[in-house]
């Protein structure tokens, strides 16, 4: 990485609106520090503690230490393959000192989790050519259905890049004022060059529009005619992620994140592309949708669209990654095959020891059983001219052909945050403090791994890495608050089973960048919790720590199950592949958590 003095803000672009006198001059060269160099400096710095390296880096550092080859600092530099969330958080606060010590809750350390905030980072409005609602329609439904945060992600494209990205902002600003308890981010749905779509969003601020607009104009696959699979287009996607990271480091925006959406839908997000995005800037590219939106799409015809759950109904196309099997093109228990397959693509990323998170969102465009429609006069020409459709009107009929739910109605992404703020949500996501559920399957999930050895105890929660002495004992503690309130389909979901997934961390496991197998990862324990009320507590011995590994959790209402894609030995009772034209999402509920890593230090 090099220090980038590029202006973070395009002064030339026209602003359709002007919302503050402080919109003037975002970049201040005097305060710009070479953030990238600082990051490298941190890696070289012997004071960078083990706990602030990725599991992958830690594992290599431990190996080298054990071999007596080099000092901890040298090993850290040699193993520098990514940037830890903590380092990133620090790196974008240049000029505020060089506190490398772990400070729980401080800017340099993974944020302490004080509350779990539910949200949705994939929502469309009338500024998308295939959607229809106002920002406030989506936001007030999200708030009513219990979400704490949401991201407005209208499609990237020529019209949006030209005017839509500007015009939606006042609506978002107004919704923030109307719903002061709800965090409403502006983002966009990026047509990732050579690949699928992804959420890109930034922390609110005077440059939120400018940064999104320049990003879209310079890096959107549709705007740039860069949709097809080619090395040049794949490189453009990587450059876009790196550009976003540069915007954060130069303080144009205080934070920016990217997550890949519906990654397996058309087989066009190849494993090496996903790895390339992650490695382009792990502070920006943090994960993908574990479950896509459009969860009502599989409701049977007459009652629903009669399509495939998630609109995952296609066969391989010309740009699809040839090694993906037909099974990858369907959802399994509502989840994307990359996530639902134990030992599959997501696990192959985790087994590298590099963070990669999952989310669950609505992808709300038009809502199943809604009674509104676009106004008369809506057309593609009108949309292109205005950058949006007119406000929706009452239809006087019920739309059972729509495949989406309102934000918060079915899919939830729970973020462990240090406080209820925009930056805390983004940091919690980057730190991997994430679990997701469908249909409000559970009320709360608290997962911790504790290691004890030689008089020392360490504890970590979702997204965290425990560095412990070899020979320490690791213990998993799970507390699940069983649901006691009805969900938005007016029944109280009953958790039936909790599964523990465990796999080895091998930093060299992805020498094949297109691998989507984690050969060691499997379901190692299943707990029948059917009928339980109150809080389910599970304590499980993870054994003596000899080598790096991770654990993650999954739970289900137990209504639909089949052996996993990689066989019953890996996953005896995983989610069942969804039936096209007959997939009732309310009869098939799951939760998934992010992993916790345990890494032995020499």
């Amino acid at each position, binding site marked *: 990485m090099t220090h980038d003095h590029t202006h973070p803000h395009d002064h030339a672009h026209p602003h359709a609106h002007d919302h503050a006198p402080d919109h003037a001059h975002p970049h201040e060269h005097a305060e710009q520090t070479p953030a990238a160099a600082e990051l490298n400096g941190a890696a070289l710095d012997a004071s960078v503690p083990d706990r602030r390296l990725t599991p992958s880096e830690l594992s290599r550092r431990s190996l080298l230490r054990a071999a007596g080859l080099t000092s901890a600092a040298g090993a850290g530099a040699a193993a520098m393959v990514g940037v830890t969330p903590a380092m990133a958080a620090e790196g974008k606060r240049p000029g505020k000192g060089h506190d490398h010590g772990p400070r729980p809750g401080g800017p340099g350390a993974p944020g302490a989790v004080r509350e779990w905030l539910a949200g949705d980072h994939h929502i469309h409005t009338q500024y998308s050519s*295939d959607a229809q609602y106002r920002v406030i329609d989506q936001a007030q439904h999200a708030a009513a259905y219990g979400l704490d945060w949401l991201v407005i992600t209208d499609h990237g494209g020529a019209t949006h890049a030209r005017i839509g990205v500007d015009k939606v902002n006042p609506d978002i600003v107004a919704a923030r004022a109307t719903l002061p308890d709800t965090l409403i981010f502006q983002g966009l749905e990026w047509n990732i060059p050579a690949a699928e779509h992804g959420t890109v969003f930034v922390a609110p601020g005077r440059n939120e529009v400018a940064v999104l607009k320049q990003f879209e104009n310079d890096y959107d696959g549709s705007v740039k005619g860069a949709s097809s699979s080619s090395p040049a287009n794949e490189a453009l996607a990587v450059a876009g992620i790196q550009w976003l990271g540069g915007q954060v480091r130069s303080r144009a925006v205080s934070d920016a994140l990217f997550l890949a959406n519906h990654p397996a839908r058309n087989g066009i997000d190849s494993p090496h592309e996903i790895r390339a995005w992650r490695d382009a800037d792990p502070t920006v590219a943090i994960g993908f949708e574990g479950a896509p939106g459009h969860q009502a799409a599989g409701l049977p015809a007459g009652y629903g669209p009669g399509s495939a759950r998630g609109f995952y109904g296609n066969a391989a196309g010309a740009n699809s990654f040839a090694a993906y099997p037909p099974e990858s093109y369907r959802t399994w228990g509502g989840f994307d095959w990359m996530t639902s397959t134990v030992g599959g693509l997501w696990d192959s990323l985790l087994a590298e020891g590099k963070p990669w998170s999952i989310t669950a969102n609505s992808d709300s465009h038009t809502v199943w059983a809604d009674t509104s429609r676009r106004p008369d006069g809506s057309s593609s020409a009108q949309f292109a001219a205005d950058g949006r459709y007119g406000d929706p009107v009452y239809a006087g009929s019920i739309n059972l052909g729509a495949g989406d739910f309102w934000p918060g109605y079915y899919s939830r992404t729970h973020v462990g945050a240090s406080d209820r703020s925009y930056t805390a949500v983004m940091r919690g996501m980057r730190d991997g403090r994430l679990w997701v559920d469908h249909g409000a399957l559970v009320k709360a999930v608290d997962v911790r791994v504790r290691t004890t050895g030689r008089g020392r105890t360490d504890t970590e929660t979702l997204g965290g890495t425990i560095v412990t002495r070899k020979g320490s004992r690791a213990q998993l503690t799970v507390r699940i608050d069983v649901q006691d309130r009805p969900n938005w389909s007016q029944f109280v979901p009953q958790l039936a089973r909790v599964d523990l997934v465990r796999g080895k961390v091998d930093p060299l496991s992805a020498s094949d960048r297109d691998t989507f197998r984690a050969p060691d990862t499997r379901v190692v324990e299943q707990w029948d919790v059917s009928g339980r009320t109150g809080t389910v507590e599970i304590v499980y011995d993870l054994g003596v720590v000899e080598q790096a590994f991770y654990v993650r959790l999954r739970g289900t209402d137990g209504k639909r199950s089949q052996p996993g894609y990689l066989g019953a030995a890996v996953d005896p009772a995983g989610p069942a592949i969804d039936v096209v034209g007959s997939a009732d999402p309310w009869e098939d509920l799951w939760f998934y958590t992010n992993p916790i890593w345990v890494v032995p230090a020499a």
Partner: protein
Amino acid sequence: MNHTVLIAVDTGAGDLAGVDHVVHHLLDLVGRPSDVVASTHVVAGHHALAASWTADADSERDGLLATLVSAYAGSGVVVEVDGAREEAGAADRLPGAREAADRHTARASGRLVEFPGRGAVERRLSVAEVVADSCVDEVVGLAGTVVTPQSVVDLTGFARPTWAGGRCTLLVQAGASGLIPFEVAQQLACCSHH
């Protein structure tokens, strides 16, 4: 005397519906021989196609290359009669046409748009009937979907079996009322307007 005819065309088709359209146009052009097999193949990020049949008159092969080159301007065209290959057309599309021709011949991979028995099986019928009445060797269920000879599969108007390792299989999935093909006629647009 009989001749074995193989043709392959790479028009650069971007999606399945697009390449199917070219296949049907091409079959009309060559008069839909009774034993024709037409397949599509992914080559370099797009779809090319190939077709083969037995011609019982020289007139069915003479001038074929010129006819195809003229019908598909800008495409790569391969014509092979009794093993003798000729090619013409756009140089950048010739590798795709060659690849389609080779894979069609080897039945190593490919997606069948036209095949012996298609007219008989594109309806609601049993798996046993699919195998008996068409070139399909086996009907395979997606992800553990149970398929028995008595299972009913709805192929009304659309079936796209595939070749793999010389065998022709039809992949099916569970549907709202019985089995349906894995590849359905209406593919969902990748973005917008669904």
